[in-house]
């Protein structure tokens, strides 16, 4: 875990350097655009997080594997943080550039829905004392909620949105200059590294909780 922590820290520091010093200013937006590196990185991480919630939920419903449930739960907790970051950095960029904090276009609406789905998953979990019921019912929420994620991702491709068009894997005439692209991928990597570190901490917590439960049961007999 320490190695992972050090790797995450170093990667984040490198990303920070690249975001503020290495990457050039934008011709239209000046330096305001730099928040995009944090915003897009958070976005990809949040969607990957919910995908892991989905995969963990499916596996739990199918095989009742406690590990799958742990992955789903830990991904939801970490993913919620990144999704919140996404919804904060977005408006911070939007106000100087569009003049508005928010609009209800397809992408923003569905991303807010994604945030609500993280909340719903965690809320359902918190309402049950019996861990098996908590796991099963939150898994159901995780599976049904995942319908939103691919639509959210494709929203800027399928509809005309206020949100900018994709720059990575977008259509023709899209794309970033190499230095910006490199900065974006380094930032995204750093955020994913952080997400997986948080995920692993979550898994350790879950396992510790289970051990304590077992010990309690042993001593109460």
């Amino acid at each position, binding site marked *: 875990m320490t190695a992972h922590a050090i790797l995450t820290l170093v990667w984040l520091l490198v990303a920070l350097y690249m975001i503020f010093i290495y990457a050039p200013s934008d011709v239209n937006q000046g330096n305001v655009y730099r928040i995009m590196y944090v915003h897009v990185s958070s976005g990809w991480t949040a969607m990957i997080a919910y995908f892991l919630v989905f995969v963990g939920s499916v596996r739990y419903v199918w095989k009742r594997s406690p590990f799958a449930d742990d992955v789903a739960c830990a991904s939801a907790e970490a993913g919620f943080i990144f999704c919140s970051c996404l919804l904060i950095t977005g408006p911070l960029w939007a106000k100087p550039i569009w003049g508005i904090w928010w609009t209800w276009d397809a992408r923003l609406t569905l991303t807010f829905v994604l945030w609500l789905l993280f909340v719903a998953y965690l*809320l359902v979990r918190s309402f049950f004392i019996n861990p098996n019921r908590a796991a*099963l019912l939150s898994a*159901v929420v995780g599976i*049904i909620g995942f319908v939103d994620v691919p639509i959210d991702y494709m929203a800027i491709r399928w509809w005309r949105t206020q949100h900018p068009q994709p720059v990575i894997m977008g259509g023709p005439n899209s794309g970033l200059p190499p230095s910006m692209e490199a900065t974006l991928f380094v930032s995204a990597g750093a955020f994913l590294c952080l997400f997986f570190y948080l995920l692993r901490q979550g898994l350790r917590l879950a396992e510790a909780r289970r051990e304590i439960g077992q010990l309690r049961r042993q001593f109460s007999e």
Partner: protein
Amino acid sequence: MRSLEIIWVLFLKDLRLEWRRRETLASICVFGILVVFLLDFAFQPAGEESLRLLPGVLWIAFAFAGILGFNHSFAAERENACLEGLRLAPIDAGLIYLAKLLANFLFLAVAEAVIIFASSLWYNFSFLPAFKWFVVIVAFGTLGYVAVGVMFGAVASNTRMREVMLPVLQFPVIVPIFIGAIEATTSALKGDAPGQFASWVRLLIAFSVIFIVLSFLLFEYVLEE
């Protein structure tokens, strides 16, 4: 087919229960009308504004009426261990879901008819010109909504705070359905050609199918003890 018979029997059971006490139907109709009434007071639309506000007002009224209905549908099953009885029956749990889906769809449809009639009076708006397409849009929007509502109603009824849990769980999921329904309704009532809102209707149908299939597959896990 045996499955259809089972669904029919369970559907009739829900209807019979409802017919005896008529609580659900009465309360969702009244609540829906109250929502329309309050929003009329809040906005006091004049003439042209009615058309702009009405689709939103209608679907909000449908949403709140639906929540009452879904909560009650499963609350009723908790009395006298009815849910255990259903669980023990040698039937596919998904069939119970489909029967509940049909029953709740029918109740909400009746409430919606009452709500539409009331709003037609209060907003001085005639739905007749675009009636055929309006009914199609409301039907598919309601189907998608009820598909999610029955599923999450079952999930929420397991928790302590079931009345609060249901809206928190279901509203994020049904946002696409409601957006589609309101856009399509606005377009249809304005008098647009069907081609203009066809894509929204397709969205409603797609979501209804996805959620019905997913809920059908997952319902046995929700009923599990």
